[in-house]
């Protein structure tokens, strides 16, 4: 007969409860290790994604730097643009003071002629520092002067038309007058 059939194991065998307890302990150990492992994996993933984003930020910053350098390369162009804008703007008021003498004299003459029958002679022209023009003349009558004023006021080249002075000359039976206005036919005819 084989010897092992007659062996006696005197060591106490673990009971069912002991075996179950040992199984529970080993399972608990496994479960306990899962959470930290999971946390470590999530942390690693977050670190890698963060690293990727930081690289993206650096690339974007490099692109911004390159574009700023490109903008700075246009500095000379901007300076010329600035010079033109400032110089032209500073000349705008002065250019408004310019006038074409031929056109001015023609406009005055044509305006008086356009009254039709009103008779007047212009014997003085003036311009003051504030830009206002003046004409002095002689009209045959107050009525003629009134007609002249109406026509002058109606013409768009003459603005703010006012009579500065009127003087009736009884010896010659005529009316001397001085009319002032702003002349706006300045930048039209070039």
């Amino acid at each position: 007969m084989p010897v092992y059939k007659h062996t006696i194991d005197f060591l106490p065998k673990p009971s069912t409860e002991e075996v179950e307890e040992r199984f529970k302990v080993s399972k608990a150990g496994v479960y306990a290790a899962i959470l930290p492992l999971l946390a470590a994996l999530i942390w690693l993933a977050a670190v890698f994604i963060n690293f990727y984003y930081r690289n993206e930020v650096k690339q974007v910053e490099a692109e911004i730097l390159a574009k700023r350098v490109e903008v700075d390369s246009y500095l000379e162009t901007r300076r010329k643009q600035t010079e033109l804008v400032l110089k032209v703007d500073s000349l705008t008021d002065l250019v408004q003071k310019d006038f074409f003498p031929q056109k001015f004299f023609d406009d005055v003459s044509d305006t008086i002629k356009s009254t039709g029958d009103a008779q007047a002679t212009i014997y003085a022209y003036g311009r003051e520092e504030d830009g206002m023009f003046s004409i002095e003349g002689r009209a045959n009558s107050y009525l003629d002067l009134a007609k002249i004023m109406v026509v002058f006021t109606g013409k768009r080249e003459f603005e703010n038309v006012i009579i500065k002075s009127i003087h009736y000359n009884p010896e010659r039976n005529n009316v001397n007058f001085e009319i002032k206005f702003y002349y706006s036919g300045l930048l039209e005819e070039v």
Partner: protein
Amino acid sequence: MPEEGLQDRKREKGVHELVKDAEKGRKAPLPEKFKKSGKNALKMILYYSAPLISIAIFLLILVLGTIPAVKGIVQSNNEIEEKNGEIKELEKQIKVLEALRLNEADVNMDLATIDKIVPSEKTQVAKFVGEIEEMAKLYNLEESKYESGETIEKLEEEIEEELKKESAAIIHIPTSSEYIATFEDIKEFLNALYYKDDFIIVSSLDMQGYEAREYQAGRQREMGEQVTIDTTIPVTEWTMKVTFEKYQFSEGFSKYLEENLVSMQSKPNEETLIFIREKYSSQ
């Protein structure tokens, strides 16, 4: 002797049974066994505290590692969005600047024209006065009042001081004269100055014909005043008192341009620019 072997076998069975019975009787629970020894107590502590330690490690990694990393991701994302906005803005600027550069030839031409009519260099008052005098002679205008050399020199000094202004300014250079000529000659003289390739403005003018002089003399007599009007001037002649103005940019203008830039979208006054181009560029 066989009876002794049978009794031995009966004794052996008895031992087996005894051991089996002893095993069956052994039902003591584990915790109680642990309580009985230090090693067992430690194992018990580890067994129940393992989940707690596990959760603590999880939370520690979460708070010290994961949350800061996620915050970093969010921050980086926001930074990227912000900087992409900045890139779009810079691209818009570059487009505007490219358009400006395309027009640079026109800008240079306009600036050359302006610099010709409104210079920035050292003033030449005497030269300006001389040019007016020459033009007047050309159109038969008799100069009844001259600007003396002393007056011109003084004016030149004043203008030089003005030109050194720190601020960006446009300096006015006036010159006044009085002439006697026919109305037509005066008109042609003024027209010629208008067409001159130079920016000269008639800032003040007083033209009087014979009738004007007669009228004013008559008014003075009526008022009992001394007659100051020259009535000896021929009937056909007109008198003209005129002040011409030329302009220059101060030194401060150039310095101002070095340090300041207008916005990229700024454009010069269109009407003024067209006037300058049409009047001076075509000559």
